[in-house]
């Protein structure tokens, strides 16, 4: 089988198509990015830097980092465990399990927040119990962590499952036969084979965890200095017409998006063979 090679544009239609693609990308993707930078630096550099002196913004950044630091390891554990179970063993209900792991992708972020209010909110399933024992879940850190977990749950698993499925079990079976322990097999054979895909998944998971807005917004209660994450701080600042503050904080997240895309692109070029097939260019 031969594939059609990419060619240099020759005819007018070729140029028209390429120019339209550039025009659309400029209008839909680049313009919003420019707008963030423009509005953040509207008052000059000193005003922009004041954003980082704002204690509310810094508290929000700290909370965002804390939530990410809790969610990431849990997602790594879940991602590896689920990929191990699904690709290394046969069991009943595997297909259903796979669809359930994918489910959070198709949920509205608001619904991903709502479900936790229905569980732990004042009138939720466990509302009275939590109130009686003075435990805060909603409008507090645990709620934010749970909402972020639900939203990010598929990210690592989705990268590992197709790759480990492709790789097969031959090497691992050989190692076990030769007497290697389970942990040895994992750390010396499986992990080296999946490390770039794992990094890829962790990267996407981290970007989403730090940027999640809808789900966190529902469970957070927007308490300044306490339950405002960085995206929520942006909303509050924007609604208070603090344009420079909102866009200034947004530049941190834009920077994060750029780093994510850059590492992602490098992984796709450099380690294409060690990622799941859907990311091989």
């Amino acid at each position, binding site marked *: *089988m*031969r*594939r059609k090679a*990419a*060619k*240099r544009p020759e005819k007018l*239609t*070729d140029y028209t198509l*390429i120019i339209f*693609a550039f025009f659309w*990308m400029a209008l*839909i*993707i680049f*313009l*919003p990015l420019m*707008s*963030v930078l423009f*509005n953040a630096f509207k008052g000059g550099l000193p005003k922009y830097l004041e954003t980082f002196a704002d204690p509310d913004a810094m508290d929000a950044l700290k909370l965002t980092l804390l939530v990410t630091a809790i969610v990431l390891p849990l997602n790594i554990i*879940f991602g590896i*465990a689920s990929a191990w179970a699904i690709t*290394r*063993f046969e069991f009943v209900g595997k297909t259903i*399990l796979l669809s359930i*792991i994918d*489910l*959070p992708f198709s949920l*509205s*972020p*608001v*619904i991903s927040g*709502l*479900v936790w*209010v*229905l*569980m732990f909110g004042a*009138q*939720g*399933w466990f509302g009275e119990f939590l109130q009686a024992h003075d435990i805060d879940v909603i409008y507090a850190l645990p709620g934010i962590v*749970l909402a972020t*977990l639900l939203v990010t749950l598929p990210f690592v698993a989705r990268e590992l499952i197709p790759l480990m499925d492709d790789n097969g*079990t031959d090497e691992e*079976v050989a190692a*076990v036969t030769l007497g290697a*322990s*389970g942990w040895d097999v994992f750390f010396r054979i499986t992990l080296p084979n999946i490390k770039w895909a794992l990094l890829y998944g962790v990267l996407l998971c981290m*970007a989403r965890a730090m*940027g*999640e*807005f*809808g789900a966190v917004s*529902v469970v957070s209660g927007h308490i300044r200095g306490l339950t405002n994450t960085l*995206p*929520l701080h942006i*909303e509050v600042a924007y609604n208070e017409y603090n*344009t420079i503050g909102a*866009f200034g904080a*947004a530049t941190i*997240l834009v920077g994060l*998006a750029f780093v994510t*895309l850059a590492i992602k692109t490098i992984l796709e070029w450099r380690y294409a063979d060690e990622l799941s097939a859907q990311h091989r260019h």
Partner: protein
Amino acid sequence: MPAEISKEGNFIKPKTFRRTRIIPGFSISLGITIFFVSVIVIIPLLALLMRPWENGFSGFIDTLFDKRVFAALKISFLCSLLAALVNLFVGVLIAWVLVRYDFPGKRLVDAFIDMPFALPTAVSGIALSAIYAPNGWVGSFFNNFGIKIAYSPIGIFIALVFIGLPFIVRSVQPVLSELEAEVEEAAETLGASPLQTFNHVILPAIMPALLSGFSLAFARGMGEYGSVIFIAGNIPYVSEIAPLLIVVKLEEYDYAGAASVGIGMLIISFAILFVLNLTQQYFAKKGL
């Protein structure tokens, strides 16, 4: 693999998974997986599914057909549908350009397609709203002609076009690059015009990917919140989206109402998925 003999002495069918159980860690890995999936996904979703009925089935129906809720569901549905349709055309075009042409800056354009995935929705939301507001870069231009983009359904549509683009491009791109050159060349040799070749050779091949990209973009649009609420203006009956009504209902401590709207959104998403599946089967039957 030899058949095993059970304790009672009867032959039992060999179970295929016996062979793969050479690798250790089955119970612990499946245990962790089921624990996470139950606590994080299944039980919370059960809480959602069970909530709307506390005022009976009629309470659920009354909420969905309440004028404001119904208007919001309609706006969400129409804007998502329209945005996904526009992305269908533009997405195929951009995927085509990326696969078929070499030009300076191609890798950069390719990497930037994923920007709507990577950019936090709140950031896209305030950025889009700043551009399309009546005093914004693009908004002021249209304002001269009396067209309001931000704070109207057009704004919701623009935000959903932004958020939906990568779904179509990333679905179609791999299929397009795997197409066999011979088939196209045969069509050309037989005298087909480029447009005919596209319609009769390429389009049928990318149709399944196109439909799945479309349904992903649509579903995302139905549920999208962060990038929409800033530009939408959230005027009841005019530019209020369904996810926002969940937030409104929660602020009124109307949990059953919020859950009803959530279920309404899920029903619409599943209905679209179902229709697209049927479409796919129809095309498959026609041999396209």
